[in-house]
């Protein structure tokens, strides 16, 4: 009987002395087992000679790093993503062609933007081409050109001008809104046309570029923290 089962342990010197002696005695008289032993030994040599793969990065956990480093890295990554989203969202919002559909969409945005713009101008403000941009959406125009932008404005001068909504809107385009309002003339030009002629958009919230700057800043912070966590 060939002691095949013992041959690997014999190679590895893992047999007790009596078993080792018995196998050694058998090997002395058995060419088959000697051949098999040599094959198994060489097989073990080949297995040991297999190329050693190397990890693509350090796998050592940075247990000496401050405990807050990992959550801070996660927060910075999330903040960067959120700021990037806000940048894209605000850029898209400001680029959308509001009001191109005529009177349906435009009025919905007019009250907020107009109200915010009317105060600095005051009753004495002049209605130039810039102010005309808002005229298309003003539903309750008031006396002076600037006050005429507001929905609920309560201007003092020229109360008679409140009678004419279309007048404010159309005259503002030509830069003659104040006289027109004061005269209370009826102008037949469509407000939609005014909207197209004045492309400047009201600014909603901070500039989109602020979000981009924040996204880059948080991204850089996350990158630095990640490097710190991975550093050897």
């Amino acid at each position: 009987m060939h002691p095949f089962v013992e041959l690997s342990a014999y190679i590895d010197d893992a047999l007790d002395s009596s078993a080792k002696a018995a196998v050694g005695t058998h090997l002395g008289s058995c060419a088959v087992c000697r051949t098999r032993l040599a094959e198994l030994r060489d097989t073990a040599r080949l297995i040991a000679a297999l190329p050693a793969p190397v990890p693509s990065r350090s796998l050592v956990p940075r247990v000496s790093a401050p405990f807050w480093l990992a959550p801070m890295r996660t927060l910075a990554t999330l903040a960067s993503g959120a700021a990037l989203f806000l940048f894209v969202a605000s850029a898209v919002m400001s680029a959308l062609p509001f009001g191109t559909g005529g009177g349906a969409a435009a009025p919905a945005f007019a009250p907020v933007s107009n109200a915010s713009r009317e105060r600095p101008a005051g009753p004495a403000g002049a209605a130039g081409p810039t102010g005309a941009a808002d005229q298309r959406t003003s539903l309750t125009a008031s006396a002076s050109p600037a006050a005429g932008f507001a929905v609920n404005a309560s201007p003092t001068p020229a109360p008679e001008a409140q009678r004419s909504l279309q007048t404010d809107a159309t005259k503002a385009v030509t830069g003659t809104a104040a006289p027109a309002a004061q005269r209370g003339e009826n102008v037949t030009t469509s407000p939609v046309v005014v909207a197209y002629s004045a492309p400047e958009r009201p600014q909603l919230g901070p500039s989109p570029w602020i979000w981009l700057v924040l996204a880059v800043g948080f991204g850089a912070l996350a990158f630095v923290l990640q490097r710190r966590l991975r550093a050897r």
Partner: protein
Amino acid sequence: MKGVSAEASALLVERARRGDARAFEQLARDVERPLYRHAVRMVGQADAEDVVQDALLAAWRSLTSFEGSSFRAWIFRIATNRALDRLRSRRRHPELPLDPPAEDDDDRSWAEPAAPGPDLTDIAADREALVIVEEALATLPAEQRAALLLRDVEGFAYEEIASITTVEIGTVKSRIHRGRLAVRNALVARGWKGPAG
């Protein structure tokens, strides 16, 4: 341990057990690559890095419970268990069998080697043989593969392998022989003539 003497390693282990994170990182760096090459052949390259990282982190968290004499054997035990767990979790879509289809306690019948035929072509270079060995290892049952790699690649003694894989030493002996013989059979089947060839 490569690059670190036994005394230095013992000192690092003691410092790490007392909570010295930098000492543990030094220990982990010394075993990182051996653990990785072991994990690659156990679970494949895709999961090997995760297995090693999980094992090292688990080792750090349970270092106070380490009471053995060999940190290297202890960390290999954790990594091998992680690798086997990972393979078991793949059982729904198995790529490699964990055990032979019909486990036979009679080693002799299973291990009867294939005899070289008369028309074998010589495998000229070890490089080709290594490819065959790699392929044959991948087809071994996971426990056999683990025992064989721990012996032939990592150089652990049978007693250490029994401790790492938590089986009797007789089982270790059987697994190593079966695995080695299966690799030898694969080589012979592809024309290997053995050491004389």
